[in-house]
């Protein structure tokens, strides 16, 4: 029943859809900055899967460029996620040190 499923785009797109929706849900409902951050990671990974999968759809056909565009974009996503992790978690630690709480709804002293 699953024969040839690896050579069809559907399962990859389904996986990225699930990742995106769960990531969005996480961002919306978590009351914890680290949790929100995990949701962002899920959404980024969903986008990265799509880049690689759609590149595989067009790879080495007439329409594709000779460079591995999709994979390069995913590589940049991974690197930027690493930067994001460093900065976001440094901020989380600072906020936790100052307020003993990392609920993003309650950190609003800078609100104008």
């Amino acid at each position, binding site marked *: *029943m*699953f*024969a040839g*499923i*690896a*050579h*069809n*785009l*559907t*399962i*990859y797109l*389904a*996986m990225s*859809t*699930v*990742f995106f*929706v*769960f*990531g*969005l*849900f*996480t961002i919306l*409902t*978590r*009351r914890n900055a*680290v*949790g929100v*951050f*995990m949701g962002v*990671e*899920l959404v980024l*990974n969903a986008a990265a*899967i799509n880049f*690689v999968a759609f590149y*595989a*759809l067009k*790879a*080495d056909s007439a329409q594709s460029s000779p*460079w*591995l*565009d999709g*994979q*390069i974009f*995913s*590589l*940049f996503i*991974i*690197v930027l*996620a*690493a*930067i994001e*992790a*460093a*900065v976001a*978690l440094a*901020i989380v*630690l*600072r906020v*936790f040190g100052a307020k*003993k709480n990392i609920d993003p709804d309650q950190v609003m002293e800078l609100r104008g």
Partner: protein
Amino acid sequence: MSFLDFFVVFCFLGGVVCSAVVALHPNILYAAVALIGSLLAVAGVYASLGADFLAAAQLIIYVGGVIVVILFAVMMSESIYKRRFLDGVKKMFLPTILSIALMLGMFKLLVSTNWGELRIPNYENTTIRIGQALTGPYALIFEYVAIVLLFGLIGAIVVARPNILKKDQDGGNS
């Protein structure tokens, strides 16, 4: 059904279950552990799509780096993991409706479109082509990302450093 099919289905199911746990589990440490699982599943998908280099990079950077940092943050801010950190049922209502609607819509789009065959079986060494792309047409973006990485790291160190300005005021005791 070939082993590759089995592997992809396995990664798909693992990814779905793990991402659901990330979204729904009340304990943040379990969410972090489930995030490991979902990132590993993504690495598996990269591997089966012929993107070896990406799969290994995903393992090294995400699983070996980002997750460790997340676990550090969870463990250092001690009282977090003892507290339920999902929203109450009332506030969950709208996001749930939105998510379900989004998922249904996207799945409908997915099923109703004919995507065509993938061209994975050109088993090639992707590392060489990624290297050529990063030093060729993507050189500028590569440099840009490197600079962003540098500034991001400096910024993170400055932010996370305890009371760098206070030090002068209380005689360097802190």
